[in-house]
């Protein structure tokens, strides 16, 4: 049993570290993990799900705004990007945040093509992240079910 737990824990550890190293996550995510304690065991999961919901909603809105080339409401796109950027930096979704930065710049210069590209990128990134985090949480659940504790991961 311990072996399994240990193995799972190691897997978890490696996976999480790889996510950091690949730039999917940054420091902020580890901060979030710090906030999770016995009182709030699902804190991170909740935040992250909320984030993904937000992403989905915002992307839809922005997609609609960018649909017709004649009247693109850049203001709305801008506010959407702003929100997305804020959310992503709050949860530590590094790649998403980076795309948002470029997205904002395209929006500032009212580059519709650029915006669409960035939007697609954002979509791609958040979905990718979602998948990865899903895997991570699955691992977590497995560990907990196996009776182990989630290991602390030092990303330095």
């Amino acid at each position, binding site marked *: 049993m311990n072996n399994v737990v240990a193995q799972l824990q190691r897997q978890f550890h490696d996976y999480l570290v790889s996510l950091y190293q690949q730039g999917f996550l940054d420091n902020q995510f580890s901060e979030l993990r710090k906030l999770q304690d016995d009182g709030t065991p699902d804190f991170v999961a909740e935040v992250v799900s909320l984030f993904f919901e937000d992403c989905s909603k915002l992307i839809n809105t922005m997609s609609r705004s960018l649909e017709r080339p004649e009247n693109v409401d850049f203001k709305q796109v801008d506010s959407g990007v702003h929100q997305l950027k804020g959310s992503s930096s709050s949860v530590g979704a590094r790649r998403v945040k*980076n795309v948002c930065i470029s997205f904002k*710049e395209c929006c500032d210069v009212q580059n519709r093509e650029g915006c669409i590209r960035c939007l697609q990128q954002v979509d791609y990134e958040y979905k990718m992240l979602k998948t990865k985090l899903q895997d991570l949480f699955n691992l977590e659940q497995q560990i907990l079910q196996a009776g182990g504790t989630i290991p602390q991961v030092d990303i330095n």
Partner: protein
Amino acid sequence: MKHNHPLAKEGRERERESRGKIPIHMMEVCNCIEPQWPADELLMKYQYISDFFIAVAYFSIPLELIYFVKKSAVFPYRWVLVQFGAFIVLCGATHLINLWTFTTHSRTVALVMTTAKVLTAVVSCATALMLVHIIPDLLSVKTRELFLKNKAAELDREMGLIRTQEETGRHVRMLTHEIRSTLDRHTILKTTLVELGRTLALEECALWMPTRTGLELQLSYTLRQQHPVNYTVPIQLPVINQVFGTSRAVKISPNSPVARLRPVSGKYLLGEVVAVRVPLLHLSNFQINDWPELSTKRYALMVLMLPSDSARQWHVHELELVEVVADQVAVALSHAAILEESMRARDLLMEQNVALDLARREAETAIRARNDFLAVMNHEMRTPMHAIIALSSLLQETELTPEQRLMVETVLKSSSLLATLMNDVLDLSRLEDGSLQLELGTFNLHTLFREVLNLIKPIAVVKKLPITLNLAPDLPEFVVGDEKRLMQIILNIVGNAVKFSKQGSISVTALVTKSDNRAPPDFFVVPTGSHFYLRVKVKDLGAGINPQDIPKLFTKFAQTQSLATRSSGGSGLGLAISKRFVNLMEGNIWIESDGVGKGCTAIFDVKLGISNESKQSGIPKVPVNPQPGNFAGLKVLVMDENGVSRMVTKGLLVHLGCEVTTVSSNEECLRVVSHEHKVVFMDVCMPGVENYQIALRIHEKFTKRHQRPLLVALTGNTDKSTKEKCMSFGLDGVLLKPVSLDNMRNVLSDLLEHRVLYEAM
């Protein structure tokens, strides 16, 4: 004495005898024809009267003498007087007694007469003898008297002279006063002529000044008459040379060219003329501590003419007066010249001042313009730069062919370099005009070194250069200083070491320096109470540096010309900037090298503060257990439009033990906020001013300060303008999102302790 003719006497006896009984035979026939006239009696009478008067005179003379001598009391020869008196009295007595002898007289009378005569003879002889002694004395008294009179006359004369001199002196003083009372050259000269003319009652007074060429004398000023313009005489005239040759006033002929000022008509007998030189002192003649050379002096000529047709002559004292005046004029003129010069210098200085002021203002404007330009360019340049870097890095992470990857990597590298260069240029220009200030903070020194090494390690590993780090055991861990800039310096130096080494190893040593045994001689290290000097030595065994090139290393843009160094890139700014930073940190940096190919050691000292706390702000470590803050039950309000952010912030605060209420809009916030909430965290990310209005409204709602909750803004950017805006809207603090747990904990405790917070960035 009355001549007593003996025969007459006998005649008289005969008469008497005839009256008496005197024998006739005793009578002789005298030869004198003496008729027995009754005129005999007349003669007798006359004799009688004369005798009487003589006696009276003889008696009165001594009385007079006595009277006057008594009155005078000065007469020194009383004894002589007595004698003289006696003599005269006796003579008088004799004559008096003679009166009785005209008639028959008894023997007593004859006896008295004889006695008197004898006495008279004795006294008169004595007096005669006396007088022989006295008269020379008396004569000498007379001589002395004459001598004294002469002396008195002479003294009178001298007094007259002194008085005249005194007059002259007074005139000179007055003249001097007049001349020196003004510092204007023309007035001086004019006054001189006027006053001289008045004092000495001159007919004409003229001043000849040397021309610019110095070859001629030009008539510049006259007292009484208009002179023709440009009336000049050559300076080499013998009379002029004579006058210039001596400092005394010289009498010259009235016919000499300098004295002929008015048309000569033969009738006039020209008055005497005197000329004197007036030295003109040139400022260029003055050396400090040195009197001007007389031989190079220029002179002006002053000519003074007495009124014609008067018998006046130049007296010595008048000449002296003229000489003195000439000297005074020279002094006054030199003063005037000095004053002119100093006024001119002052005007020049004022002009220069104005020009300098203008130049300074222009320079300031230029600096301001440059700073504005830099600030704008900085922002304008950085934005696309960031875009390039960000997008390139994103591109890197997509699927690329190796060619494309290479291209993207090059783009990334170049743009990073460019970004660094821009930063460097901006930093340097700020450093140059001193507007750069260190941002002090507490940080972990050991961690800093390790980080630097971690950053450099990849390149070093590729170049197969082992790097070792030696931290002295007494090196403080937590220090106060500018972390970012210190890292920049170390990075630059270590980077250089790696760049310029092809083989060998690199060692980085950090220690606390106490003595300056290897520091440059003009730098003394004195560790003060809460400060210490950190010394970092980076030694490499690489290319080395020619000792001659070492001074150039720290000048910006200068590079040693060897191909090896040029190929490794770099703009040459790194060391210059590092030096500036080191200087800002009150330190020193230098490089030692044994020569080309023998490696080199870069050493720098900087002053750092020792931190008392072991607080760490920077790279947070993941704590093993969440630490409860002392914020149990602290009521806070979180306002954020973004759901995710809101949730994260809430989680953060809940973790710290606070009781959190969340709102998602301004209006809701205003509705919900109460005096129970101690802190309100509001997100102000959205552009525009509306977010800040909420702060003002809260201020309005809570008039009493202790009731009002503390207001903290959460924002994504923390530049100066945001900070200022927050302050102006009455916010108590600004936090940079995303906030770490430790950060939040510190911020809260700081906030509650000080009720204001503007450092947690």
